[in-house]
């Protein structure tokens, strides 16, 4: 560690780091456009100029390495003047069409102009005409006039995906980012381009012109669409009551996590967000009920408890079968394991997960469920549902998840399930599968509850609710913790489980793998 001075304040920084990174760590933002932490400094935008004592000219913060006792000013008059001048050059060739630009509100060029620019343009010449709507990918549109040639997109495709679909053609004032003879960006990470473009040059048809970025609320979550567990931001419109704009998720963005996904997410995770809203179940469905009162969330665990107790006291734990899936959190799987495997000694435990997909060799894995590793570490043996074994001698089936219908035809399922007397399903969706069960209880998705997941590399990641679960849906862990209490086999054990954190804490004590991972 060495000491440097940023704006007269002493700061301890790592040797070999750059001025920009050192300032960022000290909480000082140095404006930059071409620099992106995923790549080596490029130094082409000139926005990050700072004054360093002893240097005759202003230096680039992104590429200048700190030295002992370096005195850096990030806010001096010269620096502010330089930023203004740089902005004037960048904007000379920019169309200044913010009001109709989809990136407005999300654009660093706009932000910096507001902070450091605010000049009267001296540019009287005619601006270069370029391609305004060049389709460079399945959903990506490039506006070459808005481009400031930071080359983040070119570098991303060169260094991360190594597919090199974009390049900078021509030079000087004629330079422009372009594709090679109509060959568009085709890879599973194309969506990241719209996200790393600091201006309105690359926009995403999946999002553009549907809403404005300043209406969106941003919430942290974890992508459940494969076992990588990429960190994401869910951006949703909270809805306007007055104009009848409904609450809706508009896009998913990558959230930095160097251990898991770096700065990126794949297109499957980015564009596959319809699972959050489409076809969701929001009410408890009672298809068949034997004499009981109307079920509500308060008495579900009581109802289930009674049902299970009746079977158990008749020494018929063999009559209980369970279908699980690995979209359940560590905590939920742990509670299921404790209640059904340890206490009730249920043997018929199956898993119904979405079918395997093709991995892309980078982030996307072949398992389209987020918590397979967690289920294994908790002690489950992941057996796919076998309909004959499931129905044979089963009196009561407790099933989780909507994924059964992806594994079997509805006819085969009906045939097997008709043999079982009592059937309860916890599902996210309202679909045909639900008609086969007596009771369907709507539950919260990962984006709507708290808990933790164990990714393919064994990294345990906690998450908090990003969205409200629809209607009557609630997280499974609440029912399970309650059920544990109501069953009365080991009631005390379940009493302290008032939050997923408390459950994970207990897991750390019981399972070595989860020690200090809470």
């Amino acid at each position, binding site marked *: 560690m060495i000491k440097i001075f940023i704006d007269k304040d002493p700061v301890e920084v790592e040797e070999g780091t750059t001025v920009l990174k050192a300032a960022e760590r000290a909480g000082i933002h140095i404006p930059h456009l071409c620099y992106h932490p995923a790549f080596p400094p490029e130094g082409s935008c000139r926005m990050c100029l700072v004054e360093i004592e002893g240097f005759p000219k202003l230096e680039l913060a992104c590429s200048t390495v700190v030295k002992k006792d370096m005195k850096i000013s990030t806010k001096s008059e010269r620096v502010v003047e330089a930023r203004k001048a740089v902005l004037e050059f960048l904007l000379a060739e920019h169309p200044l069409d913010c009001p109709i630009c989809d990136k407005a509100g999300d654009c660093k060029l706009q932000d910096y102009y507001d902070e450091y620019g605010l000049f009267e343009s001296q540019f009287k010449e005619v601006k270069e005409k370029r391609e305004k709507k060049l389709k460079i990918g399945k959903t990506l549109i490039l506006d070459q006039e808005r481009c400031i040639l930071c080359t983040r997109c070119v570098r991303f495709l060169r260094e991360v995906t190594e597919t090199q679909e974009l*390049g*900078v*053609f*021509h030079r000087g004032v004629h330079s422009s980012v372009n*594709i*090679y*003879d109509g060959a568009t960006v085709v890879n599973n990470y194309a969506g990241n381009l719209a996200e790393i473009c600091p201006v309105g040059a690359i926009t995403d048809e999946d999002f553009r012109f549907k809403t404005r970025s300043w209406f969106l609320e941003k919430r942290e979550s974890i992508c459940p669409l494969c076992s990588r567990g990429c960190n994401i931001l869910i951006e949703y419109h909270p809805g306007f009551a007055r104009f009848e704009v409904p609450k809706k998720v508009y896009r998913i963005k990558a959230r930095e996590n160097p251990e898991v996904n770096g700065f990126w997410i794949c297109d499957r995770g980015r564009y596959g967000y319809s699972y959050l809203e489409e076809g969701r179940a929001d009410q408890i469905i009672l298809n068949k009920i034997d004499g009981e009162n109307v079920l509500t969330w308060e008495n579900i665990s009581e109802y289930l408890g009674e049902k299970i107790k009746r079977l158990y006291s008749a020494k018929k734990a063999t009559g209980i079968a369970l279908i699980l899936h690995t979209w359940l959190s560590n905590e939920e799987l742990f509670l299921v394991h404790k209640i059904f495997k340890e206490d009730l000694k249920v043997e018929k435990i199956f898993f119904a997960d979405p079918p395997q997909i093709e991995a892309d060799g980078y982030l996307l894995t072949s398992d389209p469920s987020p918590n397979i590793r967690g289920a294994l570490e908790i002690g489950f043996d992941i057996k796919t549902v076998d309909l004959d074994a499931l129905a044979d001698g089963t009196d009561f089936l407790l099933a989780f998840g909507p994924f059964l219908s992806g594994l079997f035809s509805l006819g085969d399922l009906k045939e097997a399930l008709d043999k079982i007397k009592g059937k309860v399903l916890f599902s996210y969706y309202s679909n045909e599968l639900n008609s086969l069960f007596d009771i369907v209880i709507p539950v919260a998705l990962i984006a709507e509850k708290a808990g933790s997941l164990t990714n393919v590399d064994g990294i345990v990641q906690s998450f908090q609710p990003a969205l409200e679960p629809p209607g009557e849906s609630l997280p499974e862990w609440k029912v399970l913790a309650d059920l544990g209490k109501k069953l009365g086999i080991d009631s005390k054990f379940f009493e302290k489980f008032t939050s997923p954190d408390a459950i994970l804490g207990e897991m750390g004590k019981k399972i070595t793998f989860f020690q200090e991972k809470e």
Partner: protein
Amino acid sequence: MSLEFSEKAKKKIEEIVARYPQKEAAILPVLHVTQQEFGFISAVQEKIVAKVLGIKPIRVRELVTFYTMLTRESLGKYHIQVCTNLSCHLLGADNFVDYLVDKLGIQPGETTPDKKFTLSTVECLGACERAPCMMINFNYYGDLDPKKVDEILDNLK
């Protein structure tokens, strides 16, 4: 048009590539050989060069469009490059370009229909002491005036 390098060019390229620790680094000298071989570098040539160097054609196009000495279209027999930078400009390069435009009937960047002349304007040719100056193919001509240009062009077959 041959889609392959001649044996001579292939040997030359081999020699050039061997000089660099990475194949890609040889791209500029290889492009010069390519231009000598084919006269210009269009998409077909870009792909051949990319294949030889084990890179994507888009990398080749980035360079071909960047450097003015590399051309993407076939040129006339005589490539006239007129300097319009500072010294030449002060000594009337603009009038001089206008004179050539009138005389040849083409704009800068164009080739005469008989494929004899291509006219380009370029930045400094490094011959300010002879401003205004121009290059025709690889020969320099300086201290130009319309009369001198007429003589030079008339002598070109």
